[in-house]
Each structure stands twice: as structure tokens, then as C-alpha cells.
């Protein structure tokens, strides 16, 4: 079971591109690249004219930028939790609350099913006076297994987040 890695992949790709572009600009500016003079213009006049004269090239640039914008928009939505938070399971939440009925002051107990029942996300908040150890043991040995069986089967992975309020 792994944490969502999309953000790290995205950051690594953007970081590598920026690092590469920055290193190239620095090396080129310091005249450390053979055959590429530092006094040359960043955008040579000939290239600018060639692109300006052929409008299809600008349309192609716009298309590439549009595709990239959609890719980054998808990344943004995913990083904001789109499709990763899962749907709330009423049955699971009820089973969780019944299983922990001995814990006084239990709040925010939720069970979410992520994706096509690929993972369970369970969250609960206990009061500071609660015996968190027995709560964790109960969850591990009884409650999560029961919820998994109800939602799908015993092979379902589950992440439980326990918080303690004041």
C-alpha cells in the first residue's frame, strides 16, 4: 500500500525541467558550452521571423500549450483530492460507531471507499481522556475487518487516521 505518488512525480518533472533550463541558461551565459556563443540572442531574429511568417507554427505552439494546460489542470484537480477522497460509506460508518460505542465523546467517525473499492479510508476523533490504545487495537483486530467484509472482502487495504481532540 502506497501513498498517492502523483504529486511527487509532477514536482519531480517540473523540478527537473526547471533545473535543466536554469543550468543551460547559466552555462550558456558563462560561455561554457562549446559552439554556443554567449553573445548570441536568446531568440535569434531569423527564428522569430520564421515563426511569425508561418502561422501554423503558432497554432502548433498554442495546441501544445493547451494540451499541457489540460495536463496540469488534471494534476491540480487530483492534488485537490478529486477521485482520491472516495465516497462515504454509511454502512461502514455505522459499523464503526457501533464497534466503538464504549468510547465516550467519539466524533467525526467516517468510513470512505476510495476508487472502485480499492481502499478504505477511516477517520475518527477521540477525546483526550479516551484510551487510544484500546481503540487502535479494536480497530486493528475487529472493526476494520468487519467493515472490509461488509464493503467488499478481506483483501481490501485500509488506512485509519486517529485524531485526539482537546
Amino acid at each position, binding site marked *: 500500500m502506497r501513498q498517492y505518488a502523483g504529486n511527487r512525480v509532477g514536482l519531480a518533472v517540473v*523540478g527537473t525541467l526547471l533545473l535543466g533550463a*536554469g543550468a543551460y541558461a547559466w552555462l550558456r551565459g558563462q560561455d561554457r558550452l562549446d559552439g554556443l556563443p554567449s553573445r548570441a540572442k*536568446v531568440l535569434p531574429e531569423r527564428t522569430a521571423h520564421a515563426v511569425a511568417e508561418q502561422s501554423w507554427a503558432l497554432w502548433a505552439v498554442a495546441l501544445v*500549450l493547451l494540451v499541457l494546460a489540460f495536463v496540469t489542470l488534471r*494534476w491540480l484537480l487530483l492534488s485537490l483530492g478529486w477521485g482520491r477522497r472516495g465516497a462515504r460509506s454509511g454502512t461502514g460508518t455505522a459499523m464503526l460507531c457501533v464497534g466503538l460505542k464504549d468510547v465516550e465523546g467519539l466524533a467525526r467517525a467516517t468510513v470512505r471507499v476510495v476508487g472502485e473499492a480499492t481502499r478504505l479510508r477511516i477517520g475518527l476523533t477521540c477525546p*483526550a481522556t479516551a484510551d487510544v490504545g484500546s481503540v487502535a487495537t479494536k480497530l486493528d483486530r475487529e472493526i476494520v475487518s468487519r467493515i472490509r467484509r461488509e464493503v467488499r472482502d478481506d483483501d481490501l487495504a485500509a488506512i485509519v487516521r486517529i*485524531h485526539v481532540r482537546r
Partner: protein
Amino acid sequence: MTTLQQILPGAAVAAQDTPLRRSRRALRPARTPAAVLVAAVLTAGLGLTTAEIVSALLGKSLGWVPVDRAVAWASRSSWNELPPVGLALAGVGAALLLLALVPGRSRLVPVETTDPLIVVGITRVGLRRTLRAVAQEVDGVHKARVRLRRRRIEVTVVTGPESSGSMLKQVGTAVGDRLAGVGTLETGEVVVRLRRKGL
């Protein structure tokens, strides 16, 4: 020398996959704030630039992104004016790359489980609160503060002037018992400090 791990293909993997490692993998920070920021900046920048280029091609510039000025600047600037910009870009890139590669510190402390498919984590704030509550239950303790360090837990208790050394032991035992009860992994040793009130 041939070891058992080399003979059995699955044995090495099974030996390395400890509960702590498994929990760390599942609870590793997802780098959400940085990702949201970078993705939002890129989406806005790329989207607006696309709109600007398309509108310019259709003969009506929107004026949202100064593409013309950027092209004019690139046409008159030479590479030897760029090293500071290059260094700044490389610095930002290295920072993003580090964020992606460094595992980071999870906001959840992993808790031991018997089922390898179940990962339980308690929030750092939550663990602090439960330990503080248990330390404050010891007779004579007026106030307690808990700090979670990388390899140890520091508990500072404020007591009255009549406090004794045995109180330290009681607090240490209570906190240790609660930690053992919760079954946290990777919390390290407990250090208890006593501060007398009114001295």
C-alpha cells in the same frame, strides 16, 4: 557465500517489509500544498498564454499575458545577460526536485497492526494530547507539556514545591504505558523533565 535470501526470491522482500516500513510508505506526506501551488501556477500560466496566442492569431489580442513584450525581450537580450535568471530557475527546480525525492515527515505517527493490509496512524497533535492527558492524571502534576522530537518524546511537567523524584518515575511510567498501549512505532525514548512551581 549464498544466503537463504538469495535462494528464495520472495524472502528478501518479506524480510525488508517491516510494519514500520509499510506504514511509512502508506503515510508518507503527499506534498499536496506544493503540488497545488505549482499545478495552479502552471495551469493559469499555460491556459492564459494559450488564450493570448489564439486571440492574437485571430486578430484581437486580449492583453492578459505580455507575450509580445516577452518575445521582444528575448529578441534583444543575449545569453550572457541570463546567468542570474538561470541560477534562480535552477534553484527553484532543485527545491522542487528535493521536495519530490525527500520522504518527509508524516503528520501521522504509525501504530502497530497485526494485519499487513491495515495501516493505522495517530496524528502528532493527537498523540501529544493523549500523552499530556495521561501525564496530568498523575497526582501532584499541575500542568504537562509534550513535545514529539525525531527520536524522543519530551514530557515537561509542572508540579508544586512538594514534588519528589518518584513523581518523575510515575509520569514516565504513565506515559510509557500509554505509548505501549497505543503501540506507536518509531517514537523512541521518553524524557521527563520536572519543573517546580513557586521555587
